[in-house]
């Protein structure tokens, strides 16, 4: 008996082993490298968000895992078994599609029960499971409806129930919330979190929305041009970006070049920036190779007012002032090459006019230095 068949009760040797292992996975379409040398482990109950701009290969990667494409090279291991060449049907992986892909000729109940029927569940078990799943996603009493009679959010719930009903080892979500209005999107986001906690689902979800990635992923994998450029917990990626691309993707920081850098200790360095020597913290030791960058948080700088001793006063030209409700987003040119984007309380920015000169106060304690891998290629 293979391990996949005893999925309900993991065999001893699968405990502590990742549910899904991607080994040097590659996919070429003609001469285009859609996925390049992706290595990834996913553990039981874990959730990974594949984040990247369109064309980054994240959907292709998902299609490879689901079995809709065959890899050009590399392996996909599911519960320790090589499934790289298996048909989607043989993989026990549930998929939620971007536009839900509900069967229009079947009722909600029949949609949810489709996977059970294909996996030859006995009729009575099927009925109880379908009812259970419909209740789980909060669609009680709508089992007899057809997909076209449901709202977008409701269709999304049906898609989720259908993909989870047959107890797959892994759930894949392809841009699950992209087609929904903002309000329903946030609601669905917390729904997915609740269902995940309840069923302890292992899942991978693809998105281009960083907030969605942070809300749904225990770990985030950032893809660009088919390659993994950064991976880590949302906190790691948000506060300690390792590449300028990752930093740019979350846009929590301004990344600025420094004129000089002297390492003081493992956790501190002295950088020369805008003609001033500043002692700043570094979370990881500054490595010998790579370039040193100064991280200036977007939220934190203040506009005008008295400059405290712990603060740095940055004078510059105000290039833009966008009112966002609670905060205003200012773009300030602090030197010839350096722009700082700062989110300051809206009432402070009210009087600042574009084109004028402003002073930003930045608390030195919020600055950090990091080493960035030199952009490859």
């Amino acid at each position, binding site marked *: 008996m293979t391990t996949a068949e005893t999925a309900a009760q993991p065999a001893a040797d699968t405990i502590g082993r990742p549910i899904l292992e991607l080994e040097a996975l590659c996919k070429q379409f003609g001469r285009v490298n859609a996925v390049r040398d992706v290595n990834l482990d996913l553990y039981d109950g874990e959730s990974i968000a594949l984040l990247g701009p369109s064309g980054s290969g994240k959907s292709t990667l998902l299609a490879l895992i689901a079995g809709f494409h065959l890899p050009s090279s590399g392996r996909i291991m599911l519960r320790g078994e090589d499934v790289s060449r298996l048909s*989607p049907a043989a993989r026990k992986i549930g*998929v939620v599609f971007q536009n839900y892909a509900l069967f229009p000729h079947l009722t909600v109940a029949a949609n949810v029960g489709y*996977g059970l029927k294909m996996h030859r569940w006995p009729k009575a078990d099927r009925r109880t499971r379908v009812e259970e799943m419909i209740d789980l996603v909060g669609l009680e009493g709508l089992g007899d409806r057809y997909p076209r009679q449901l709202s977008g959010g409701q269709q999304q719930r049906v898609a989720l129930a259908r993909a989870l009903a047959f107890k797959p080892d892994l759930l894949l979500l392809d841009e699950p919330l992209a087609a929904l209005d903002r309000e329903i999107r946030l609601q669905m986001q917390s729904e997915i979190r609740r269902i995940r906690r309840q069923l302890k689902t292992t899942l991978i979800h693809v998105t281009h929305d960083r907030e969605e990635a942070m809300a749904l992923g225990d770990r985030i994998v950032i893809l660009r041009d088919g390659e993994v450029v950064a991976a880590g917990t949302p906190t790691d990626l948000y506060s300690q970006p390792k590449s300028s691309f990752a930093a740019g993707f979350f846009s929590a920081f301004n990344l600025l070049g420094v004129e000089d850098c002297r390492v003081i200790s493992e956790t501190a360095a002295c950088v020369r920036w805008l003609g001033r020597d500043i002692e700043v913290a570094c979370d990881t030791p500054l490595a010998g190779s790579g370039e040193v960058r100064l991280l200036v948080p977007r939220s934190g700088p203040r506009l005008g007012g008295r400059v405290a001793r712990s603060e740095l006063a940055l004078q510059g030209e105000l290039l833009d002032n966008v009112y966002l409700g609670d905060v205003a987003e200012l773009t300030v040119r602090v030197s010839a090459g350096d722009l700082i984007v700062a989110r300051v309380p809206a009432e402070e920015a009210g009087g600042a006019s574009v084109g004028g000169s402003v002073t930003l106060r930045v608390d030195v304690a919020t600055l950090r230095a990091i080493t960035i891998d030199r952009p490859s290629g």
Partner: protein
Amino acid sequence: MTTMSRRRPQIADRLVRLLAKIVVAAIVVFGILPAVMVVLSSFSGEQFLEFPPRKWGFTQYSTLFHTSSWFHGVATSFELAIPVGILTVAIALPAVFAITSPHLSRIGHLLEVVSLGPLLIPVSAYVVALYLAFLRLHLVGSFIGLIFAQSLGAVPIAILVLASALRRIPRNLELASMSLGASRLRAAVGVTGRQLVPAIAASFIVAFLFSFDDAIFVTFLGGPSVNPLAREIFDSLRVGVDPVVTAISTLLMAFTATLITVGAVLRRRTS
């Protein structure tokens, strides 16, 4: 807002609407009126063709139902049209799966252009070419040959109907079905095929009507022995004007209109 600036677009609007009305009226007059004339003359009580009829009656219809040769024609038409419908769908259905397949994008395009080719060639030229080929193959006057020839003519229309329906069915449905445990064949037949049923029926009707209404293929390729209704009408008009033709035409129009309506409803259901 001043009244001037509002009135201008209104005048343009009215002009466009008036033009649309004229076009529709022209369609009605030139398209439907001849049909109405035929229908009205079919209810003439005389033994000859006249319009408008001076005496109303069912003379044409009673003559029609007492002439067995017309019934032979109807029977032959069905014997031709049903196999043509089936054969056309059997050719067009696998073809559209190939044409729309994402794996064959370039060849698919080529296939589509080639398969729609017969639509671009004038029917008479096409039929003459077929006639020459049929002479060589000794197929002139054969029933089977005619079924193949008419199917050839109907395939492009069936492909248009089926391909547009198939393109409207999201590919994801099949993938979803496979991820839920269905085999490739089961996903293709049970999900995509199931969605395609109305379009398949519609393309059958289109091919059926193509054969039923066809007089050109039959005249060239049917030889003396194959005489469906459309050809009988044609031949009867060649000798002289038989008023019974008006009754046949009226019944034929009713029959065709019913089938077209059914086809249109079926096609709408696919979307």
